């Protein structure tokens, strides 16, 4: 194959490097999307979370070859949506953010929780963000933020 083609934050893009390169590295190094963080390198922390074809993904565990034909959304692409605005306000209202390193991934995980179920139970929220580690604020504030986003964003999800 000559080129890997995929949609990135709504725009058609191409990549012609090694197909085994991690999506995380391509997003940061080639596309300068620095909201995608590298935490653990082994799929445990969720700091590198992106959304691929509507599903939450650890971009450190994704080879470029596997995204050929896929749609990838990073926090930079998501930040221009109405849904983001609701989550942004909800996170701010309850001070769910401290250092911020986990937050791009956490927000995308929140989006995936609400996209799957607009009225999630607390247990569903906690399961939905269980692969995204935060070492600052603890998870209660984040769970509150997602709960209040579900209420405030009626009809958006």
């Amino acid at each position, binding site marked *: *194959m000559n080129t890997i083609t995929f949609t990135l934050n709504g725009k058609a893009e191409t990549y012609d490097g090694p197909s085994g390169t991690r999506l995380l590295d391509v997003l940061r190094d080639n596309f300068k999307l620095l909201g995608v963080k590298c935490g653990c390198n082994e799929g445990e922390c969720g700091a590198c979370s992106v959304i691929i074809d509507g599903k939450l993904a650890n971009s450190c565990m994704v080879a470029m070859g596997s995204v050929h034909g896929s749609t990838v959304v990073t926090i930079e692409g998501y930040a221009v949506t109405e849904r983001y605005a609701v989550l942004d306000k909800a996170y701010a209202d309850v001070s769910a953010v401290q250092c911020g390193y986990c937050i791009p991934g956490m927000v995308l*995980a929140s989006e995936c929780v609400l996209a799957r179920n607009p009225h999630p139970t607390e247990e569903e929220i906690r399961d939905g963000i269980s*692969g995204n580690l935060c070492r600052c604020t603890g998870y209660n504030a984040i769970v509150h933020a997602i709960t209040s986003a579900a209420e405030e964003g009626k009809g958006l999800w």
Partner: protein
Amino acid sequence: MVNGYFPQSLKEALELRAMYDAVPYGGGTDLMINADPDANYLFLNKVPELKQIAEDSQYIRIGASCTFTELMDHPLTPAILKEAVSQIAAPAIRNFGTVGGNIGNGSAKADSALIFFVTDSVVHLMSSKGERLLPIKEFYVGRKQLALAPDELITELLIPKTALCSYYYKKVGARKAQAISRVCFAGLMDIADGKIIKCSTAFGAVSEVVLRLDDIDSMLAGKTIEEAKILKPAYLKAFEQAIVPITGRISAEYRKDVCMNLLKDFLDTSGI
């Protein structure tokens, strides 16, 4: 020119597998931990024939490229398999990790492999020259060693539809999420008219391969509950002697204790 192979169909995947020395890529969640950018992968994540979940008169048929999330969402997935895969890692891993990859990795800690062992499932292997069906117990030869020919691919896992009704499953890990099993255990107890039709158990993360000691389990086959209660001490003793756990991050003694506790709890909850 981009390296790697991108089959659009199973036929093409098998042809590429025969022609090139490429690593089959399911979801990447195991492979990418030791990411080698120059590796030649055979990308199977979008091969439609490998994404099917179906049934025939004998089996529930799970395509090798089905992800754990797809299994959780599908009505044909047996409850025991749903329960096991829903406890794997976290959503992002479950969205991409596949059964083919979980089996193909050859680990005795693979949580889906445990379920294929306890249900005596069959691995469907195909190559461009033909196909074969292999009981999962024969597919695992040793630690990270599989009876997979260089030109073969795992295409399906076939779960027998018998004895899927009453099950027991417990995963013991260090945390609720993102935990590798320290011990995982599954048991099936098929009782009809007061008689045990079949009892089967499997222990994961204990040995080089998943332990499925069907010769011991068969002690209980055909027995009434009362007879099984009498046999219980001998049954437990046989397992006590047969389980010789590996030592890793946790001790063999701990693994052994957990195995025996889970086995006893399985019998207790089955009324034996």
